[in-house]
Structures are given as structure tokens and as C-alpha cells.
């Protein structure tokens, strides 16, 4: 690591050195020698299944960006912080990165709890903060932020797209059961699903709402109940090791043969499941970046990103890798826009934030627009799990693409209120097959 030396110097020098960077933000913006970005991600705990690959992707992409001359001519240096120890630690680290390390942009976070805790700090410390992976709809619906932007979709679109897909492909479902992790995302996603389902197809009966403990390793009770109830559909927004365990234990007992699973966060677990993933179930990826995307906007760039990642780490990138990449591409686009607006001079924090608002930036698969409230509009692709000879794991087939703007609640409206206002014919008009 080439960056270790400067960090160690700063640390050994102790408290004294932190004086200098702390005053930096007050000075007029000068073109910095390096573009420091603070990245919070899970390096420990169960969510490190997302955090570690995303860090690898970030490091790889930063290498590429720096090899091509950096962002607006300035080399980028990411500083990673572990989200694992919890909120207290993270908000402390956020302050340290901004006030002591002098990072110019924060990229936070995987957990919705972390995002909710960090985003207000963005306003208080007047530092541009990119919400790069968290999904909670509460962020931009409960408050207004001048310095925070989410460069990807969010819970509402990531739940609504699989719901629309399900209702379109299986219009005759009558019963649904849910088995989600017992924490905020599990509860929120179910609330969104329920609101949308009741509006789009009134009369579907919910036969079981199960919220096993976060971190469960045994779902036999839940599976027994589902086998007895025989619901047409089982929804699970679980992720990581729990989703893998749930699928394995369900397939062993052939639950998948009599019910359709809807798994909006499935993509990240497909490589681990490999051939054990049953075919014909609805799977989502929190976006449009499937490895078998049939028509990415920039196939060369997409294949390069996937190929480089595979070559370097001997595995396919999962969705958090794409999300952190989106954050970096957005940062690049916004910074270059702000620098161009100042005729080559380096923008201040406020000017950089201004460049983010309304920004449309390219991704390998499509483009993402950041709305006036800061929310990104990311397309959603949903399909049925299937196998082909290109991948040793399940990928979607019969895919439908839902444009981000179509499946996101309009600015200023609460997601649940908006979902409740949807009409059943939306199922047939929304999205297009690709």
C-alpha cells in the first residue's frame, strides 16, 4: 500500500497534526494534490458479504481512474471505514474523516441505519455525501438535504419492480406469505410490498408474516408452516448468508416446487448458491446490472468492468460492486461538471453539491439521473432464475426492465402513500421486456 506511510505519519504525530486539516475547509477551495474520499462499508459482521466485494471493486476502479489521470486531473484516494461496530463508532469516524483526514467527499453507507445517522452530518459538516448502497426510503422522504445524494435506486423501486413483474407473469396469484429478516429493511420492504400489492391486485390474501431473528441459521419451523399453508408466492427480501440458508433448506424440502419465490435481493447470493438455486423464481438485483444484461448501453465498458473484476478477484461482481462504481462515476461526472463550470478552477463543497443536483451520469448499463431531492433514478431489471452455459450460477431470463422514474415515488410524496394510489392497470403498462 502506497498510502500507508502518510497515514502512519499522521497517526504517530498524534493530536498535533489534526489541527492543520481541520482548518482546511474554511479556506477557499484550491486544487488538491489528491482527491480524498471517505468510504464507509462493512468490513466485519454479516453484511461484509456486501462490504468486502464493494471495497475491492472501489479499489480496482480507483486504480483505473487514477491510471487515466484521476478525476479532473486529481488522483483519487479512498479511505475505508468499517460500518460493523455500529452507529456511535461510525458517526465518530465520519467526523474524523471530514475534520481530521480532510476528505472532500463521503460515500456512505450499506446499512440504512448508517445512512440515517450519517446523512444529517453531511448537512452539519457541509460535506458532499453520496449514499451509495442503502435503500431506506426514509432518507429523502422525511427530510431535505443539500449535501446528500443517492446514486442508485432505493427500497420503493427495488420492491415495486419485482411486484409488478410477479403480477404480470403470474396474474392469478391468490395467497402470499412473507419471510423477512427481523430488522428495519425486512419490515420496511414488507410494508412497501403490502401497500403496492393491495393497490395493484386487491384481494390477495396474506397467509403468513414471518420475521425470523436477524442472523437466523435455521428456518425449519418457517418452512414447515409454509409447506402446510401452500401459499402461491413466498416473498423474501433476506440477503447474504440467511438467504442462502433459507433457499437451501427450502429446496431440500421441495418448497420451491409448490410455490413461487420472489427474491428482490437475490443476485448477491447466486454465486454462492450455484446450482442449488431452483429455476423459475423471481429474482432481483437492486438495479439493472445483471451479469447477463442483454443490452447494456456501453457493452465494452460493462464487459471491461465485469471482466477486470473477475480476472482480479476470481469471482463475478455482485450488485454492491456496481453500486460503489455508480457512486464513483457520479462523483467523476459531478466534479468534472463543477470544474468545467468554474473554467478549470476547483469547486468548493457547496459548488460540488450544486453540480450533483439534477446530474445525469452514465453507467455501463444505462444512465442515472439524480432528482431534485437527491434520489437517483436507477432502472430495475427483474427476471426468472434460470441457468445457461455462460454462468455457473443462476441468472435471470424473460427479463423486464422498469425505468427508474416509473417505479419511484414522485418527489415530495411518501412511498407508501404513492404505492397505495397505484391502479391495477399499471401492471400491464409498466416496464418493457428486454
Amino acid at each position, binding site marked *: 500500500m502506497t498510502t500507508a506511510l502518510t*497515514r*502512519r505519519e499522521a*497517526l504517530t504525530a498524534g*493530536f*498535533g497534526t*489534526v*489541527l492543520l486539516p*481541520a482548518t482546511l475547509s474554511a479556506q477557499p477551495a484550491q486544487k488538491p494534490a489528491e482527491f480524498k474520499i471517505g468510504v464507509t462499508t462493512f*468490513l*466485519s459482521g454479516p453484511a461484509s458479504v456486501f462490504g468486502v466485494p464493494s471495497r475491492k471493486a472501489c479499489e480496482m476502479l480507483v486504480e483505473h481512474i487514477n491510471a487515466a489521470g484521476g478525476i479532473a486531473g486529481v488522483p483519487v484516494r479512498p479511505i*475505508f*471505514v*468499517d460500518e460493523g*461496530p*455500529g*452507529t*456511535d*463508532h461510525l*458517526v*465518530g*469516524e465520519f*467526523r*474524523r474523516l*471530514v*475534520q*481530521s483526514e480532510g476528505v472532500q467527499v463521503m460515500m456512505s453507507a450499506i446499512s*440504512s*441505519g448508517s445512512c*440515517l*445517522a450519517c446523512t*444529517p452530518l453531511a448537512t*452539519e459538516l457541509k460535506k458532499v455525501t453520496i449514499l451509495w448502497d442503502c435503500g*431506506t426510503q*426514509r432518507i429523502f422522504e422525511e427530510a431535505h438535504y443539500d449535501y446528500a445524494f443517492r446514486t442508485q435506486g432505493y427500497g420503493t423501486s427495488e420492491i415495486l419492480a419485482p411486484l409488478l413483474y410477479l403480477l404480470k407473469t403470474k396474474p392469478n396469484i391468490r395467497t402470499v406469505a412473507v419471510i423477512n429478516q*427481523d*430488522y*428495519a429493511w425486512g*419490515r*420496511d420492504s414488507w410494508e412497501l410490498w403490502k401497500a403496492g400489492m393491495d393497490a395493484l391486485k386487491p384481494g390477495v390474501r396474506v397467509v403468513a408474516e414471518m420475521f425470523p431473528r*436477524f442472523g437466523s441459521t435455521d428456518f425449519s419451523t418457517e418452512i414447515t408452516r409454509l409447506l402446510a399453508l401452500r401459499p402461491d408466492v413466498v416473498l423474501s427480501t433476506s440477503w447474504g448468508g440467511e438467504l442462502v440458508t433459507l433457499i437451501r433448506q427450502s429446496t431440500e424440502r421441495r418448497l420451491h416446487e409448490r410455490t413461487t419465490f420472489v427474491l428482490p435481493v437475490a443476485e448477491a447470493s447466486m454465486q454462492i448458491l450455484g446450482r442449488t438455486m431452483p429455476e423459475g423464481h423471481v429474482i432481483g438485483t437492486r438495479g439493472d446490472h445483471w451479469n447477463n444484461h442483454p443490452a447494456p448501453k456501453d457493452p465494452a465498458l460493462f464487459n471491461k468492468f465485469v471482466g477486470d473484476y473477475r480476472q482480479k478477484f476470481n469471482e463475478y461482481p455482485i450488485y454492491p460492486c456496481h453500486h460503489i462504481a455508480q457512486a464513483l462515476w457520479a462523483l467523476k461526472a459531478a466534479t468534472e461538471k463543477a470544474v468545467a463550470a468554474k473554467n478549470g478552477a476547483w469547486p468548493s463543497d457547496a459548488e460540488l453539491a450544486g453540480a450533483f443536483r439534477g446530474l445525469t451520469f452514465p453507467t455501463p448499463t444505462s444512465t442515472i439521473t439524480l432528482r431534485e431531492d437527491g434520489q437517483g433514478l436507477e432502472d430495475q431489471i427483474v427476471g426468472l432464475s434460470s441457468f445457461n452455459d455462460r454462468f455457473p450460477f443462476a441468472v435471470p431470463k424473460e427479463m423486464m426492465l422498469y425505468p427508474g422514474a416509473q417505479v419511484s415515488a414522485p418527489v415530495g410524496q411518501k412511498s407508501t402513500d404513492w404505492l397505495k394510489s397505484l391502479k391495477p392497470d399499471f401492471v400491464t403498462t409498466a416496464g418493457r421486456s428486454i
Partner: protein
Amino acid sequence: MSTTQDPPRDPMARPARLMKRYEPILAILLAAAMITAAILAPWLRFVLTIALAKGIAVLGILLLLRAGQVSFGHAIYIAFGAYVVAFLAPTVNDAALLLALAAVGAGLLGLVIGAFVTRYRQIFFGMLNLAMSMVFYSLLEKLYAITKGSDGIRVEIMPIAGQALDRVAYEWVIFGIALGIALVVAILLRLYLSSPMGEALAGIKTRETRLEFMGVPARGVLLSAYVMSAVVGGIGGALIALTSRHVTPQLAYWTSSGELVFIAILGGAGGVLGPFLGAATYELVRIYAAASFADAWQMILGAVLLLVILFAPGGLWGMAARAIGGRGR
């Protein structure tokens, strides 16, 4: 059994007595160092406020340690205090008042829980406390509609004692309040520990039956210490909520309780300064470890604790005691 095992003289007795004399000076030095650090580095102000809050809470652990009891569930009072702030902030909207409410609330909760956990000793005491805190944790997660589950509740900047403040002033005042409370609580507990009630705690550790023969109700002694530890836990929790300004159920999780015991061991149970030494060291080691080795900070923290246990069983406080008066030992 104990008669044959009685050590002739506690080797730490002389340093300990000396330390008693130096304690106020050390306290002032520590406070001065914290203030200097907080002035020099704004981000350290946040870290040190959290450290002070945890130190205050660990004082409660120290009380129970005096009685030979380890609570593996004291995070329940921290979380309770924090959630009192989070829930009442919109209606009460005054940090000073909320601190008082959190202290009283945690004290009442401590009285209820203490009423039966003080019937037990040793591992049973520790485990029952752990069970209580995990029940509380599960409630915070399960009652999603009320607590917003693991996403937590945000606490906005609020007036303090009727004074509306901007962010920087607010953070300074909370830091000052934490420091002030730390000093006051430390002095009060020091007085308490040298009072008959406090000395009786040590009696519970060595021979509880003797206490009863002397006419001292052991359960009453332990219960009063338990309630006090709950009160300081509640204060610590409220300060954490006012500082980090985002409250999540994580505060009640068993790892948070473990953290408190960790700090108590790190700091040493010899004197009331121990918890603050421990908390400041813990937070700083964690921050610096996380800064230098983002994915191995747990190992460093663990190594520090192992080194302390192996080479300084009295914790940092014991190390300081040996440095000051241990030459003749």
C-alpha cells in the same frame, strides 16, 4: 478455607493508599488533557464525549465489581437512557431536563430489575442481567412501529437549559456537561465507596455471611449499588444519545455490555478514575486502530486487552499506581 488462603498483606495496599492522595490531581490532569485534545481536534471532542459517557456508565460496573459481581447486561441502562432521550426529545426538547429524566427512568428500571437479580450472585447475576438486556434489545427491534427498529431514531440538536445553541456550541456544552457530570459522579461514588455502605460491598465479595452476622442486609447493600449503577448507566446513555444523536438498538446488544466490562477491566477497578482512563483508551485505541487497519481493528483491541490482562491485572489504574508508589513493593 479463606483463613489458610489469607494473603499476609495486599501488595498493592501502599500504592493504593498513595493513589488515593494523588487521585484528585490525576483527575484534574486527565480532564485538562481531554479539554486540550478537544480544543486541538474537533473530531476528538466527539470521541472524548462518548468516552466520558461510557466512563460514567462504567462507574456503575465498578460499583458492582467491588461486590465481586459482573453484570453482562448493563447496556440495558445505557440503551434505556438513550431511548428516553430519543422518545422524549420532541416533547421535552431540553437536554438538561432529558438527562435528569433518563437518570430517574434508568434508576426506576434498575430498581425493578435489581429487585430480583440481586438475589443471585456470580455467573447467575451476570447471565440474568444479560438476559434482561437482550429482552430489551429484542423489544426495541420487534416493536418496529414504535422504535423504528434497527434503523434507529434521530435526535436533533436541542436547547440546553433553555438556551438554543448552534452545532459547535451545542457540542462544546455537551462535552462540558459530560465532563462536569463525570467529575461530580466520580466524587460522589468515591465518597460512597469509602462510606460503610460502600465498604460493605467489598464484604459481599469476601464473605457475605459475615455481613449478615453484623446485621448488614447484603441484598439491600447490593440493591442500592445496583440502582446507583443503573442511574449512572442512564446518564451515560443519555449523553451518548445527545452526542451521537442517533439511537439504535445496538446500544442494548450484548456486545455493548461486553464493551463496558472490557473498559472496566482495561481501566482497572481500583479507583473511580479507572473507568475514564479505560474509556478514553478504549475509544482512542479503537479509533486509531480502525484508522490504520480498517479490517483488523478488532484484533488490535483484543491484543490490547490481552496485554493488559497478562501484564497489568490491575488495569491502567493499577499500572499508574505501580508507577507512582510501587517502587518499594
